[in-house]
Structure formats: C-alpha cells, structure tokens
C-alpha cells in the first residue's frame, strides 16, 4: 500500500476501514542474502537503503522485541551536523541532507522540522572554540552562524542572559538542524523497506551465530536457524552481548541515557537550545511537551532506566539556562542503553569473521545519524568495502591509534 491523497480521500468516505498494515508480518524464510540484526532506526534504514540504493531484495530485519521500542523511540529527536572533526562532520552533514529528503524517499510523514539548533556560549574561550567548530562545519558543507546576544534575545528572550556565573555571550546557530518525530522514523523506514520486499520479523531474538570454515553463514534464533550470506549487526546497547557470541571483546561500554518530557505547555521554545556551561538540551514537541535531556548516568548499565541524581543535574542545568521553566511539571522520563565507544565515535566495519559486519558505538548521538548510518552500512554490506564517509569508522582504529575523539577525553566512555 502506498500512502497518497487519493487513498486518504477514499478511506475518508470508507470509514477508514481499508487501511492495510504499515508493514506486513511475513513468514520467516529459511535463507536470506542479508540479515540485519536489530530493527531499530539504523537496522531499518540499512535494510531500506540496501533495497533502494543497492538493489538487494532478499533481506530480513530481525528484531527481538517490537519496532520502535528501543533507542529509536527513546531519544530527544534532535537532528544536527555540528561536529568539529572532519571524519565526523562530513558524515553527519550527509545525514542531515538525507533527513531533508527523507519523507519523499520513504513516503511517510516523519515531521522533519528544521527549526534551528542553538548552542549558547558563556565565555571568550568558549566563543573561540565554537567559532572554530562553525568554521569546520562550513568547510564540510554544513551551515553555521555565530549569533551575538542581541540576536539570541530576539529568538529566546527568556534565557538567563545575565546569570552571574554563566552569562550568555552568544551562540553557534545551525538553522538546518531541528527535530524529527522519532517513532515515525522507525515506522516510516519499516514501511518503506517493507514496500521494497524486506522481511521485518519482530519478536525474533538472535541467540547465536553459526560459523562454517571461519565464516558466518547464518544465525540461530528463537524461531530456528536462518541462513544468510551476510549478517549485519545494528543492536546499539546490546552490541557487546551479541558480539561476545562471536568471541569478540569490543571497545564499547553500555551506559544508560535518560530523556524527559514535561506536561504540555503553550508554544514557547521554537527551536532547539543547548546549554554551554552544563549538559542540557531542550526543544518543544508539537504536542507542547518540553523534551529535554543531559548527560548519561555515567556507569555501566543495561537497565532502560536511570537514577534521580542525573535528573537533578539535568534540571539544575535547565534552570540555570532558563529559569522560566522552574514551575513546569515533569510528565515522563525514560532511559535507553547507549553503546558508548572508547573515543566517542561510531564503528561501521567488517569484523575479522567473513560475512559478519557491525554497526555500533553511536554513544548518545545515534538518532541524528540514522539515515547516513543506514546508507553507509548498506554500502559496506552490499559492496564489501566502506563508503567514503564512513571509512574512518574502523574497528581497528583503537589498535592503530586513529581515534576520532571529538571531545579529547581519551579512553573513558562515560566522558564522551
């Protein structure tokens, strides 16, 4: 089924009784060309681009729970490409460009809203580093503007500009950044991949890989053995657990990141704002809820929930930036399990085992990377070598000393 105006009109007269499922629940086949483990944003995007751009049709996406229940539905929905290092910036800018044309590509309303991302700065040295980052963005084809206080006051008059400790001196603004309805990204990619013949199998947990002569020839699941020429893993926080079945130890720790939503308010925050003196970022959803978050909790965790001390820290950051929200009541909070890599950058690479590929280490920046991650992983799976934009996201870079450490924190995952 293809969504279009005619169908909408017809169903309007038809009491909406003729809508088909957004994606089918197909029978599991015995054999596929490519199996993607993980039906999150990245896995579904990979399957979609494999089918659309690389013309491979016999693909399955195996999801252990349900589509949209993992990190793709547990983030703060922000898209942006404001990185410093070339290895990252070019990749994330490609991702942002794909976001811009996503809805046409997948024929699904993902509510892509380029409402602008503003990073405020509070000191001269921070201004200098933001200027440098802005220049790096422009060099890589992204947009960036340095805003002075007066320009920010027009956008967000309620910020605490004269805070004694952290006065706001200006900001780095990316106009093309914004937000996307995260659930719709999962549903949209699933819908589009399904349209192209990809089998999306829910409640199908991979229990083991199957190897023959040192190559991966399929997976053992709770629904039996499935044969495949190639297996790609895109399971975020569960990556270490999955890859341990191939006896791999990875440069990854799993940490919990929380996100928070307030009660619905009248429109007040038109874009995305991030605090420069603490870790706090906020936007307002179309339903009116303030969607905000901060740092990871900072300790290894596979629980999809975090602690109150992080909530307190995030709210302190929020109140320092915008005291106006002090009376707002919190409605919901949840956690997702992040695959924190040792240098804060992702891994899209082959493993040492033939036929086994991995896509991981997204830290807490995976959502905005979804389209580019899917595209580059599909390229790797289809062609057997890395896409130019992800060629630095190698698994062996830690051994060879080619870390991509955006924050310069070293091998300490909870600081990235």
């Amino acid at each position: 089924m293809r969504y279009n105006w005619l169908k909408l009109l017809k169903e309007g007269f038809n009491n909406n009784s003729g809508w088909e499922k957004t994606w089918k629940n197909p029978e599991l086949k015995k054999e596929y060309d490519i199996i993607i483990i993980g039906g999150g944003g990245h896995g579904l995007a990979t399957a979609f681009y494999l089918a659309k751009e690389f013309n491979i049709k016999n693909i399955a996406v195996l999801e252990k729970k349900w589509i949209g229940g993992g990190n793709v539905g547990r983030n703060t929905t922000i898209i942006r490409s404001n990185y410093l290092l070339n290895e990252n910036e070019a990749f994330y800018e490609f991702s942002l460009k794909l976001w811009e044309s996503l809805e046409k590509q997948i024929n699904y309303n993902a509510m892509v809203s380029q409402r602008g991302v503003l990073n405020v700065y509070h000191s001269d040295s921070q201004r200098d580093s933001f200027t440098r980052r802005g220049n790096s963005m422009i060099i890589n084809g992204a947009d960036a503007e340095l805003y002075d206080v007066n320009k920010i006051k027009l956008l967000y008059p309620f910020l605490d500009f004269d805070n004694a400790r952290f006065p706001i001196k200006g900001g780095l603004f990316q106009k093309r950044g914004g937000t996307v309805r995260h659930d719709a990204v999962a549903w949209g990619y699933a819908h589009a991949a399904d349209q192209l013949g990809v089998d999306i199998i829910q409640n199908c947990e991979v229990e083991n890989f199957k190897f023959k002569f040192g190559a991966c020839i399929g997976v053992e699941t709770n629904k039996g053995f499935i044969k495949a020429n190639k297996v790609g893993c895109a399971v975020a926080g569960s990556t270490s657990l999955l890859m341990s079945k191939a006896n791999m130890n990875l440069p990854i720790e799993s940490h919990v990141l929380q996100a928070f939503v307030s009660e619905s308010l009248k429109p007040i925050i038109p874009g995305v704002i991030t605090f420069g003196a603490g870790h706090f970022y906020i936007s307002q959803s179309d339903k009116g809820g303030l969607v905000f978050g901060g740092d990871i909790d900072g300790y290894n965790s596979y629980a999809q929930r975090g602690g109150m001390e992080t909530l307190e820290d995030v709210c302190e950051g929020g109140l320092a930036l915008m005291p106006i929200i002090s009376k707002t009541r919190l409605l919901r909070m949840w956690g997702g399990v992040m695959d924190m890599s040792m240098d804060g950058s992702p891994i899209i690479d082959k493993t040492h085992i033939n036929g086994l590929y991995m896509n991981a280490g997204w830290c807490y920046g995976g959502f905005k990377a979804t389209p580019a991650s899917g595209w580059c992983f599909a390229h790797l799976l289809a062609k057997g070598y890395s896409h130019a934009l992800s060629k630095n996201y190698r698994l062996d870079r830690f051994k060879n000393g080619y870390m991509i450490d955006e924050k310069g924190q070293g091998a300490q995952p909870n600081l990235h």
Partner: protein
Amino acid sequence: MIIDHPLLGPRDISEFIYLGDASLLNRPKWDAEDAEHSFYEYLYLRKNIAGVHKELWFHQQGDRSWLVISRNTLTHEITKVDLVGNHSKNMEILND
C-alpha cells in the same frame, strides 16, 4: 543509588565518580614481550558484562577512597562494596 561505603556507611551516588571495569587494576607488565598488545586490550577492550559487574568508584566528594563495587548492570543492585586495597592483593577475583 546508595553506596554502602565500608568506612562511612551509606552515601549517595552523587558523591562518587565512576571509572569503569575493575579489571583496570590488572595493569599489564610494561616490559613483557606482548606489552603493546596487552596495553591495547587493557586500555580499550571491555567485557561490558550484563549482570554482576565489578567496577571502580572513587569517593571524590567524601574520603577520596577507591572502591571495588559489585553491581548488577541489569538491576543496579549493589551486592558488595570493598576498599580497593583489599582487592589488589588477590586480583584473580576480578572480572578478567
């Protein structure tokens, strides 16, 4: 989370800093044949256990002691808290 400090009693987690897997206590020998490879594994690779995880915490806002804590990463339940000094003598009980 509350950490039951062996000397100070129950303290809030916000007083502590997390370093990571307690196998970081098992520093490889710098002059071994395979030192380069061992340090790569030591510095970058982690078991990333789902279950009881032995890990290093630093009581930064307290007595600045280093602790080895056994904590379940699936439930956040802390089952054992020990001063690091008691551990370094018998390293075989650590994660690696």
